[in-house]
């Protein structure tokens, strides 16, 4: 049977597609379905669309591209699915197909944002300075709304502050410096290094450092993602534990084995690195200081749905004496979804505002957020609603 997939490029696998029985139990868990009520922006619909391509009934163009682009890749559906449909794997492969079929001009713009910038440390830092300057001068207000909501708040102080590594003879924990984290969230890195020390590790940074490749992978830029993965593996494989303080990064690095499975020179090294990955909230360090009062908890999709992480964040806060408060929105995605807020601004804005309102409704002065994309999105939407709730990484709160 001839399929509609472009040959020679990874595509959603038939066996994976077959695990969906179309029961629809995932629908209410999907943020884009909740907003639109459309089968076409639901997990079941997106899977059915992939099946239609698989069966040769639809092309990888037009509507298929649109339905795929609108997905946040938050994987809430995957966590809710009783048949364990590997949705994350399916959408990633579908996106590789979509990119392979996207008109060149349209593609160039998207690439610039992802592989092009995030892959190059110098470029990201340059972009960081650019942001810091525009924000300091407040000319960022002139940026189009969609770029403004996606932009992290960056300050000169944060950019220049060097990170303190530690010496000693405990097991080595190496922290991924990353892309967005490195320009906008240095204090989070510092808090993570501190927590590693408290947990008895020798906390170190990689030589060089850079993006883990998650943004590229989520956007279907498979080759960029693989190149970035190899670079990180080479830099980090000596460490005993590999730590990422961004939910998106830890979730992605755990898939390195799968990503490089067909690369004979790298498959084993990739799998070994993947097995050593810990998210920062999993390190179980004693708190650095006592904290009182209520703290709202936002579960990043890449924590909750991709890695089943959730209790760890609450435990960290509770250990310091704080009272973690769940949001009343059932843990729905905030709409950040990597660079989704640049590419699908309307949906992202609706979800971001809903999330900010749910946070404000808890009455807590601080919200714990363990993923940079979410932190940027949430902080910007809180500000837009005139709220002064602070957004901090859980380890920053107890640092």
């Amino acid at each position, binding site marked *: 049977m001839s399929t509609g997939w472009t040959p020679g490029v990874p595509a959603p696998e038939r066996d994976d597609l*077959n695990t969906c029985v*179309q*029961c629809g*139990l995932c629908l209410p868990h999907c943020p884009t379905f909740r907003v639109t009520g*459309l*089968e076409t922006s639901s997990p079941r619909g997106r899977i*059915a669309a992939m099946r239609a391509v698989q069966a040769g*009934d639809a092309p990888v163009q037009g509507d298929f591209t649109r339905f795929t682009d609108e997905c946040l890749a938050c994987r809430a559906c995957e966590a809710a699915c009783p*048949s364990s449909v590997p949705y994350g794997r399916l959408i990633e492969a579908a996106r590789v197909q979509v990119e392979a079929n996207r008109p060149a001009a349209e593609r160039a713009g998207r690439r610039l944002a992802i592989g092009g910038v995030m892959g190059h440390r110098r470029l990201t830092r340059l972009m960081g300075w650019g942001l810091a300057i525009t924000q300091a001068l407040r000319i960022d207000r002139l940026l189009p709304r969609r770029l403004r909501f996606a932009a992290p708040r960056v300050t000169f102080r944060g950019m220049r502050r060097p990170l303190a590594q530690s010496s000693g003879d405990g097991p080595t924990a190496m922290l991924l410096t990353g892309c967005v984290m490195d320009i906008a969230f240095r204090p989070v890195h510092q808090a993570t290094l501190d927590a590693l020390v408290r947990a008895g590790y020798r906390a170190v940074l990689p030589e060089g450092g850079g993006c883990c490749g998650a943004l590229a992978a989520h956007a279907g830029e498979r080759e960029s993602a693989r190149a970035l993965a190899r670079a990180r593996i080479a830099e980090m494989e000596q460490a005993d534990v590999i730590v990422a303080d961004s939910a998106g990064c830890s979730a992605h690095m755990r898939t390195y084995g799968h990503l490089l499975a067909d690369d004979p020179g790298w498959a084993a090294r990739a799998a070994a690195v993947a097995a050593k990955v810990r998210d920062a909230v999993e390190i179980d360090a004693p708190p650095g200081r006592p904290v009182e009062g209520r703290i709202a908890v936002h579960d990043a999709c890449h924590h909750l749905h991709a890695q089943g992480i959730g209790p760890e964040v609450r435990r960290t806060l509770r250990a310091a004496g704080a009272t973690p408060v769940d949001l009343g929105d059932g843990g729905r995605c905030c709409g950040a979804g990597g660079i989704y807020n640049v590419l699908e601004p309307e949906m992202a804005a609706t979800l971001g505002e809903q999330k900010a309102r749910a946070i404000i409704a808890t009455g807590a002065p601080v919200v714990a957020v363990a993923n940079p994309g979410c932190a940027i999105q949430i902080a910007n939407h809180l500000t837009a609603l005139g709220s002064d709730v602070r957004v901090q990484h859980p380890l920053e709160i107890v640092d």
Partner: protein
Amino acid sequence: MTTAATGLADRLRDLLGPDRVLEGDLARSLYSHDGSIVDGACGLVVLPETTEEVSACMRIAHAAGVEVTPRGSGTGLTGGAVPLGGGLVVSLARMRAMDEVDVANSCVWVQPGVLNLDVSTAVAHLGLHYAPDPSSQQACSIGGNVGTNAGGPHCLAYGVTVQHVMGVEMVRPDGEVVMLGGVAPDPPGYDLRGVVVGAEGTVGVVTRVLLRLTPLPPDVRTMLLDFTTVADASAVVQGVIAEGVIPAALEMMDRNMTLAVEEFVHAGLPTDAAALLLVEVDGTEAEVTTATAVVERVAREHGVRTVRVARDEDERALLWKARKTAFGAVARVKPSYYLHDCVVPRTKLVEIMEAIGEITEREGVMCLNVFHAGDGNLHPIIALDRSDPDETARAMRAGDQIVRACVAMGGTLSGEHGIGVEKREYMPLVFDHDDLEAQACVRRAFDPSGRMNPDKVLPTGTRCGEVGLADAQVPEGTWI
């Protein structure tokens, strides 16, 4: 879409704007399915948000003479929400508003797209809940529940959807808005609510529903019992009810199903048991204690291996998750499933389970059972791979024999999922010619032009007097 309907999309777009009218091939194909394996053909999809918009859509469809199929969340298991002949799908998924709760009368008006579980969640702070709880409750809509007269595990004690719908607002096929029932206990005139509840979208589009809310029980206890034979488990079902205890829920799961579910929920279900019973009793603390004692005693009399009582709300939620995600877990075995939801008298449980075992073995198909044992409402789920035509044919044959076996034991076709496309040709097994004709006449009174979800419920060729209804054969190529 018929030629008469040319221009239909334009008129609907003028009304709803471009985003709420779907016309693309791929989008339409996604609306040609529901939770069953029926494959249909959808011509156009609209997503109205208000009663007025539904009414306007229906007037346009009436003028164009096109067929209309209402759709809720599309979790139905009989193809009810699937258009077969390329007609218009009216999706109610964007009609999700809820009114203020009428606390004095314990009821609330909701739009049809509101999800079943969302109602209970929204009223929990008032100590109330919406009692009918289909296993799909997280995803299915109130409109769809009304359409199918949905049941659920807790309907054993609380009753099915029709007992909880006090009123409905409905748009008739020509666009007229009618109101049936209301807050008053016995509204004047014929009580037509009962016609609309369970009509599977064949008499109109329900646009608002007045739901009865039930107080949350003060105390609940959930127990998991496991047995080495299905006969023992069935005897307990019988025995408990014979003792005068009506549990809030009484569900059975066989070994095949337990194996599939345990892999997903990791609830510590005993996978070597022949049958599990999930029993829930509720009421005041004293009532719960008494009922629990009765269940335990009867279970011991019939050789129960272990009695596991949920210690806290988390464990209770886990046991229910095991039950409520059971259908989906079938995909671990095969990519599709085919099931009937026929009913047998409780006294026939052992006999029918044996018959199902024999039938599925003869046809060489795998059957997983999970069902509402308390009211004898079976769900023999036959796992299949639709890309294997031979297995598909055997699954269909097994399903057919199971339905006939149930009816032969004094049972009926459907306990809760409705008739839809899948079961309509079985209707003559339980209704004679005159019964079917009477039903066709009721339907005609609401829908004289025969455009509301045609090809559903009543078998091919059913007539009201001289006028044929649903005469069309299932279109060529339709997969049922």
